[in-house]
Every structure is written in structure tokens, then in C-alpha cells.
């Protein structure tokens, strides 16, 4: 594995290896020397709280030098092209570049212009592979083997890179997925990616895990749903709609009371905070997988 741009870059074995590695990292509570002297560059061209903070902490826990840049306040703000930004920062010889960008395909370009290992931390509505891996990790910790697991993904699948990555990842490990949401937010022909679809919220009944997607206000403005009120009434995850024993996940940030009722989010069936914690270990595992196999050149004095 040279880069992690998409779940499609991974084999099932690699996924299992990353999850196992994350598990062992979760038991270590001291800083590891794995990436000492190597530079991890976090480039966030789009806003992020949990992804950027967990990548930063993950790199620090592995003793890497970490440099985190956001578009706001950088030369990107002054109109510098992505290519020039990458060529400039590449002069510091980063071992890895973690990139989030509002446009699909940006991490592929970074990988073309730089010698570093590139990790896609979310590109447009395309992919967010480390989110999918941390979600798999969270499910496996809570429920055991993933094969045969049934996951229902609820909400705005059309605009969600989280849903796309997770759907692919679940298919890769042999889990079953049902997408549930208003027909206007289910991509046409999505069944071809190996899932079932339903428009009635009752369809979540069979699932082991209900994975709730963020409902963005601008979707309502562009008439994908008539109102957030109607969305919440039809597809919102409330205590009444969750079956005992079902687990609930959300990638954050949540719109409480819209796609997810606060009582569910804070209740015993919620894995939301476990997901955040898993993010750290999984991102450590990804950086280690990408970089440990490619040791830096030893400088011989």
C-alpha cells in the first residue's frame, strides 16, 4: 500500500491488518518511536475538527514531526494553486501528506506531485477512507467479526463521502448494507455498489447497526427535502425507532433533533464517542502501515 486514497486501494487482508494494528495500539499508553524524525504534513483545505485533530495526535503519538496547515491564513488564501502548494511543501521531504479537500480527486493529484505517502482525509463527496476504517474498528470492537453483520446507513447518502467509503468497506469485509432515506438523497443506481435500498425508516429494523448520516441544511435549500422538520419526522432516529440491542453510530458533527435524537446520541446504544476514540488508533495504524514499511534513509555520518 503506497497511499490511502480510497477504500478501493485496500484488500480485505490489509483492512484486517490495519484493524488488528489499531487494536494493539489502543492498548499502548505511551508515545511510540516509530516515526521519529519523519514529517507528517496535515493539509486541511476544508474545515474539520475531529479528523484533523485525530491525525495530528496520531502522528505525535508515533513521534513524527507534525505540521498542520489550513487553507485559511495560508498562501492558498492568496490564490496559490494546489500544485504550487504541494511542490513548495514537498521541499521539506514529508514522509506523509494527509489531505482534506472540498474537491474529489485532489488527493490523487497530491500523490502525483509528491513523493510522500498520501492519506485522503476526505475529498469532496468522494472518499473518506480512514473514517470507514474507524467505523469498522468500532463495529468490530462492539460486535465481533464483521462478516455477516447488517448495517443500515440512514440519510443523505447522495452527498456523503462517509457513506461511499463505508459502503465499499462493508462490502469488502462481507457485511450487508441497507441504505435508508428519502429517494431524492439516494444516488440513482447505488444498488450496483452492493447494497439494498429502502425509503421507509422501518427498514432499519433488521440491522445490527444504524449508521446515521449528517443532514445538511443546504440540502433542504436545494429542495432535496421539503424541510428539516419533515425529514426529522420521517427519517430522524428517535428512541422509538431504535430496537433494543441495536447500536447507533454517527460520523459527526451531529444535528441533534434532526437526523439523530439527543436521547439516542447520549444513550447506552450510542457508539458516537467510541468512534472518535477509534479514530486516533486507526489513524496511527494507517500512518504506521504506510510509513513503517518504507523507512527513511539512514544518514551515515
Amino acid at each position: 500500500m503506497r497511499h490511502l486514497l480510497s477504500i478501493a486501494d485496500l484488500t480485505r487482508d490489509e483492512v484486517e491488518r490495519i484493524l488488528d494494528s489499531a487494536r494493539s495500539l489502543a492498548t499502548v499508553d505511551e508515545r511510540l518511536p516509530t516515526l521519529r524524525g519523519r514529517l507528517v504534513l496535515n493539509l486541511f483545505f476544508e474545515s474539520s475538527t475531529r479528523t484533523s485533530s485525530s491525525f495530528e495526535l496520531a502522528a505525535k503519538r508515533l513521534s513524527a514531526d507534525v505540521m498542520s496547515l489550513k487553507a485559511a491564513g495560508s498562501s492558498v488564501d492568496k490564490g496559490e494553486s494546489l500544485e504550487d502548494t504541494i511542490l513548495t511543501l514537498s521541499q521539506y521531504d514529508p514522509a506523509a501528506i494527509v489531505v482534506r479537500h472540498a474537491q474529489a480527486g485532489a488527493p490523487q493529484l497530491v500523490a502525483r506531485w509528491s513523493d510522500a505517502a498520501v492519506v485522503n482525509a476526505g475529498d469532496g463527496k468522494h472518499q473518506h477512507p480512514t473514517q470507514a476504517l474507524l467505523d469498522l474498528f468500532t463495529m468490530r470492537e462492539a460486535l465481533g467479526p464483521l462478516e455477516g453483520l447488517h448495517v443500515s446507513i440512514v440519510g443523505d447518502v447522495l452527498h456523503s463521502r462517509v457513506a461511499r467509503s463505508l459502503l465499499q468497506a462493508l462490502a469488502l469485509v462481507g457485511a450487508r448494507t441497507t441504505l435508508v432515506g428519502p429517494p431524492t438523497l439516494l444516488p440513482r443506481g447505488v444498488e450496483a455498489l452492493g447494497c439494498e435500498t429502502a425509503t421507509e425508516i422501518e427498514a432499519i429494523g433488521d440491522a445490527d447497526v444504524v449508521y446515521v448520516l449528517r443532514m445538511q441544511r443546504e440540502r433542504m435549500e436545494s429542495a432535496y427535502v421539503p424541510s428539516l422538520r419533515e425529514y426529522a419526522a420521517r427519517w430522524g432516529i428517535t428512541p422509538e425507532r431504535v430496537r433494543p440491542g441495536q447500536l447507533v453510530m454517527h460520523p459527526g458533527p451531529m444535528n441533534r433533533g434532526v437526523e439523530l435524537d439527543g436521547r439516542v446520541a447520549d444513550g447506552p446504544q450510542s457508539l458516537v464517542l467510541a468512534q472518535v476514540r477509534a479514530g486516533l488508533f486507526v489513524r496511527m495504524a494507517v500512518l504506521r502501515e504506510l510509513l513503517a514499511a518504507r523507512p527513511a534513509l539512514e544518514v551515515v555520518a
Partner: protein
Amino acid sequence: MTLVCRNGRSDSLVLEGRLAGGECVAVTVTDGVVSGIEPAAATTRVLAPAFVDPHVHLRSPGREDEETIASGTAAAAAGGYCAILAMPNTDPIVDSASVLGSLVAAARHDALVPTGFMAAISKGLDGGELTEMAELADAGAVAFTDDGRPVASAGLLRRALQYGAVTGRKLALHCEEPTLARDGQVHEGPVSTELGLAPYPSVAESAMVERDLSLAAYEGRPLHLMHLSAAESVEALEAAQARGVAATAEVTPHHLVLTDEAVRGLDSNVKMNPPLRAEADRAALLSGLRSGAIAAVATDHAPHSREEKAEPFEAAPFGVTGLETAFAALYTHLVGPGLLPLQTLLERMSAGPARALGLPVPAVEVGARANLVLLDLEAEWTVDESGFRSRSANSWLLGERLRGRVLATVADGRVVHA
């Protein structure tokens, strides 16, 4: 109607090649006119009427860094073209006789190949008010189009069709229903779903094609449909033609060769509007071209700077170049595998578009102005960024090996490429 190019001495020469009918001939050109056609020794080279491209973006005025009249017509000459039509979506927009007049004057100095200019249907291409179409027609507008954008208002399109009785010029339409296409990037289908790119459904085109054909039928006026991409559009076109609507259409080499599968690599050089569609669409376009329902191959040559195309796929502009690769791409991908007869391809790249837009039809006959292309069908070459006459290299064929090469082009009696 005006096609202009720079003045120069007409050439006298002899070209030998095999005509579409099969006979090998030596064509003598004297002072720019075909003066004799004699039998000649067998040759594998093909001699044909030169090509006509009804859809070219010359980017001038405004983006001379991407293309100029001189570089664009040099690219056309290298591609075997003896006439091209330039689109009005420049900066400033060609929506007044003064802008058009300055372009016609510039083309008299700079155009290597006879060039015609289309003018805008609506002022500022904003779909609000008609341009002064009669004055523009007098100033040399070959046809009218808002290309790059649809004429969203059915009412405005109806007025423009009616006004055609005054101008005597055709409307050429970019069919895209804007509320369906929205911010669409790629064909709506498995690829857009998997990549998470905003979908641009084929019905966004075909719904508009159907509307435009209905209006043309109602008004009894001709129209030309640009760069068709969807099977449903071809169906609508054929149905309208069967009802007697005077509709013509064009298709691009990239829509005839590629499908949306090519987008998976997120290469911005396969991003264009309309987008590459499904295999069934590609097959329908090819069948329409074969039958003649689609009369013309048009490159929709759309140069973009390297910097613009180096943006991530979603941010990169729509459009690819095509003048210098059109024949070889279609010969390699369609004629080679037996999907399209050579003779049909040559017709759809020359007489087809010329008739559709009311331009002089290039012909190899004694007494005609010499508009000839000499082709080597055996020659293989690799499409390379450094080999273009165009100022831009945003080709969907970069690095590809093609068969068929333009050896020489004679346009309006002059050797413009050899």
C-alpha cells in the same frame, strides 16, 4: 455568410491519392482550382474533400493564452480542415456587430484556414434578450448560438427561431436543462454514484432536445443540435426528422469513443460538457452517425490552460481539444475495428457538417476550389503534449497511439499543412 482567412497566393500542385470510390488519381490544382483529375499509379494514400468543423472555440478575444485565431487555425490545418466555425462565448462575447467585425478583420490577417464566426443568440449569453441578429447576420455571422449555455427560456428560443426568417441563419443549440443539470460534473450512473461527483443526467440533455425540436416543428424553422451525448436525444432527433422537422445534429469524437468509465481516473482531460455517457449512449450516437441522422462530426475543440486543467477534477473547467486528433481518433477507434466505413467518416467530417451549417461543400471535382486532405492510413503516431499547433494540450488522447495521419491539407486553394 462569411468565411475569411488571410490572403495569399493560390497554389499550383499535384496531389496523388486514392479517392473514396477506390480509383487512384492525380489531382492537379492550378491557381487554387482543381484543373484536372487523371488516373494515377496505385497508392495507399487517401485523397478526400477536406474537413469542416462546425464547432471550435478559438478563445479569442479574451483568452489568447489558450488559443488564438492563428494557433487554432494552424491546428485545424494540421487536422485536415479547410473550414471551421468559431463559437461566440469569448470575452467580450460576440453579441454585437462591432465585436464580430473586429474578429472578421482579425481573421483576414491571422486565419490560416477559412473561418466563420457564430454570434450569440442572447445578449451577454444570459438568455434574456435577443442580440441584434439581423445586423449580426449582415456583419457576417454564419449562425447563432449561446453555446456553453442552453437557451433556458422557451419563449426566447421561439422568438429567435421566428427571427430566423429575417436573418436566414440557423440556430445551433447547446441542449441542457439547467435545473436538471445543475452543478452536474459527470453522467448520472454507476460512475457518478461511486465517485460522488455531482450527477448530470442524460435527461437534462434529451428533455431540452425534445423541447427545442417541438419549437422548431411548431415554427417550421430549421435548427442544429450541438454535441449530442445521450441515446434519448438521438431518438428524439430521429423522430423529429421523420416528422419532417429540418433538424441537423453533430457529435464529437470523444462521445463516439469514450464512456463515463474513462472518468474513474479523475483525469480532468476527460471532463467536458455534455459529459461522457454510458455505453448504450455511445452506441446510439455511433448508429445515428452511421445512418446520417447525425450529419456531422464536430470537435467542440475547447482549449484550456495547463494550470486550469491541473485543478482537481471538480474544479477544472469543462472541455477538451480535438482539431488535431479527430480524424486519427475516429479512424483508429471506429473505422479500424469495422464500426464505421471510412467513406462515411469522411462524409460526416466534410460534406455533412458543411451542408448542416449551409457552408460551401468541399468536393474533389474539376472547376471546384481546391479543398483537399491527403491521408496516410498506415501511419502510426503517439499523441504528445509537445506536438500540438494548438496553444493548449488538454487532449483526452495524450499518450495514446493512433493510426491515420493527415499528410497535407489544401484549404481554399492553398496548401496550409504539408
